[in-house]
């Protein structure tokens, strides 16, 4: 993904949360119940619809089921009941290889990014691109360089991620989620541990990707995020999703 121009305040005010209703939904959850393997459900009867370009912020306390919800939205946690349609496909009925291919169209910012300690920062960010092009072309490599520069990671592009600070590793996780211009971006506490500059840049990336017609779902414990992005405001409490109070 090409990073947005610096200080593009207009992009923050873009109508990301109000796509046309006629647009095909990127995410549809209908009565979804789900839980971790061998454990009782943590999500109960969840309904959610998110169209391309739409953003939803899900607020909830610890253990509310936010991470589980994001894993359902990326096809890693399959519903025990109900239907989960991602980009028009019912994930529960997809063959495994098709479900995995679907994941390639979903960018996921984990609360704690999973990184290969031996990878350089550049390679860690470029990993999604290498799924389709083992040897990066000049444009792809340029996109990686630009994104690293935007997030302030240029100086560490050649360093192994094990040598980075925790904040830098989180930014690597953010960059990796955006680099392949996914159709859906899922973010689990995307601003945790970032400084003011990092927060502004990640928020701008989230706004920009939504402006480019990706659906964005953000899970957070901090309701202050509601004010930072134009988005549908939802609350998850003990596995049940509802509209957040204004």
């Amino acid at each position, binding site marked *: 993904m090409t990073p947005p121009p610096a200080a593009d305040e207009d992009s923050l005010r873009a109508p990301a949360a109000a796509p046309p209703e006629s647009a095909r939904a990127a995410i549809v959850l209908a009565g979804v119940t789900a839980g971790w393997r061998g454990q009782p459900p943590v999500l109960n009867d969840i309904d959610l619809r998110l169209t391309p370009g739409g953003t939803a912020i899900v607020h909830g306390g610890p253990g509310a089921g936010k991470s589980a919800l994001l894993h359902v939205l990326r096809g890693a946690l399959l519903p025990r009941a109900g239907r989960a349609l991602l980009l028009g496909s019912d994930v529960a009925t997809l063959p495994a290889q098709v479900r*995995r*291919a*679907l994941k390639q169209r979903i960018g996921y910012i984990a609360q704690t990014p999973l990184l*290969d300690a031996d990878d350089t920062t550049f390679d860690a960010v470029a990993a999604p691109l290498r799924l389709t092009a083992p040897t990066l072309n000049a444009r792809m490599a340029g996109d990686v360089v630009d994104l690293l520069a935007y997030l302030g990671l240029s100086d560490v592009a050649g360093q192994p991620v094990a040598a980075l600070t925790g904040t830098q590793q989180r930014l690597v996780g953010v960059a990796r989620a955006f680099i392949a211009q996914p159709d859906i971006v899922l973010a689990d506490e995307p601003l945790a541990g970032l400084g003011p500059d990092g927060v502004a840049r990640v928020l701008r990336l989230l706004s920009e990707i939504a402006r480019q017609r990706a659906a964005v779902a953000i899970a957070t414990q901090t309701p202050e995020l509601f004010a930072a992005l134009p988005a549908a405001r939802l609350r998850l409490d003990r596995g049940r999703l509802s509209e957040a109070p204004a």
Partner: protein
Amino acid sequence: MSRAPIPGAGVFIAVALLTLAALAAALTGETLGAHARADAARTAGALTVRVRTPDTEAAVETAAAALRALPGVRFAAPVTRQRAARLLEQAGGGPVDPDTLPPVRLIEAGRDPALATDGAIGQALLERGVRADLISPPPAPAGTAALAGPAGFAGAAVLLVALALLLRSASLAAPAPAAIGADLGAPRARVLAAYGRTGAEFGFTAGLLGTLATVAGAAGVLTGLPMPVSLADMVARISSMEAAIVLLAPLLAAGAAAVGARWGAADAYDRADRLG
């Protein structure tokens, strides 16, 4: 009530199968060796006497009696028509009528070849006016009895070493790249293939180094003996089985390590791919 899946069930199954295969190889080798030894001992003393003159049944009986009287002869019996018919049926597969057979001038005997030599038997028969041919079975293939047992144990050792390499390789497979691959939606086969290639490279290198170290160590020990062994002697002492194991060791190590690495990666991939 559904059963909870056993983590690493594939590893348990592999351990069981390879251990049993190693045991089977050892037992099979030992059994084959025992059979070969018994067969060699039996055939080494077997003797067939074909009476040429006089061409009479009485001459056959006389020759059999002469054989039985010799030291070292365990038994000697004329081949009856019935016995000949049975042997022909075993060889040819079809029924044979004993009455249709011509006179059989053969004697089956068992002997200790060291005591009852061909010369002693021929002399004893001549003294009774009988001329005969002595027919001994061809010797058992050289070394069959001696090789079967060690081959079985060598096979068992190879299987157990392969098992150890496989398990170690599985435990060394770093889970992060596999889990990242699953997170990003990388095809499972491609992720596992990458692990397999890396495992094979490491395994081959380890096998090659191990082989070189073994050869160097053996040469060092043999040349360091009070009465050093020459290079030619060393080469002459290497059996074909030992040479095969040494030459194939890097490939075996590569294969075992590749399979182990794939297993380790598959576990990490599957855990990350499906969380529930």
